[in-house]
């Protein structure tokens, strides 16, 4: 007569052994011509203070204000406006 303990152990061994069969697919299901890598966050979606190195100011999620911040910074490369 098989004891209850042996039955439990056998059940555990079987379930552990079969666990590998239920493994999920780990490779990318490839679709030609389509980027399937990780998604990237957009720069203006960050809080301006998210990084300690941030110097410009914009409103989180507001693309126009981020662009305006970059445009004003762009003018640092224009010495005609810097010297006038």
């Amino acid at each position: 007569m098989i004891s209850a303990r042996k039955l439990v152990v056998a059940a555990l061994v079987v379930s552990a052994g079969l666990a590998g069969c239920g493994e999920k697919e780990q490779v990318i299901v490839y679709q030609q011509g389509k980027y399937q890598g990780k998604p990237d966050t957009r720069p203006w979606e960050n809080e301006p203070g998210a990084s300690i190195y941030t110097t410009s100011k914009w409103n989180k999620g507001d693309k126009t204000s981020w662009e305006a911040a970059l445009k004003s910074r762009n003018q640092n490369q224009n010495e005609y406006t810097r010297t006038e």
Partner: protein
Amino acid sequence: MARMKFLCDTERCIECNGCVTACKQENEVPWGVNRRRVVTINDGVPGEKSISVACMHCSDAPCMAVCPVDCFYRTEEGVVLHDKDMCIGCGYCFYACPFGAPQFPQAGAFGMRGKMDKCTFCAGGPEKDNSKEEFAKYGSNRLAQGKLPACAEMCSTKALLGGDGDVIADIFRNRALKRGKGSEVWGWGTAYGKPDNPQQQAPKGAKS
């Protein structure tokens, strides 16, 4: 919408390699990988011209077209980036790129070619912005800090301009008009295409 571009003014570039150093320092690029470099034509001959070259973030990027695993993507600002987790280091992008931008670290055993590395326009990559992972794989994400690429901002003579295409084109146009020469922009036709009808006026308020 901003469309990020690089522009190198050959009349101004003095081959100081400040842009190369700034890029190396900002992104902690390993030995053997040069995201940006300075090329000089007719070196030593009077009238020599130098130009700073890196990924130009092409409008119709050939690297993106040839990649067998499609690891490239273009951001809304027009920056061409790639996912290093997907890259298999095949090197097709290197052969396709007209600017020689893709670089391959060869620090592995037997000089094995690693995953491709290139200029990111200081926009990081597909990891959490300004995270350790992003910095380790792709380098600094200055765009997410409201800054522009380190190479352009560090350029001592302001030969290398980087930022919104319209803004830097205006800066360069003003410059070329004031000095009365050197209005040729190297690489722009290859990277961003040539107009079908050069005489055509751009519609008002439109962006390039």
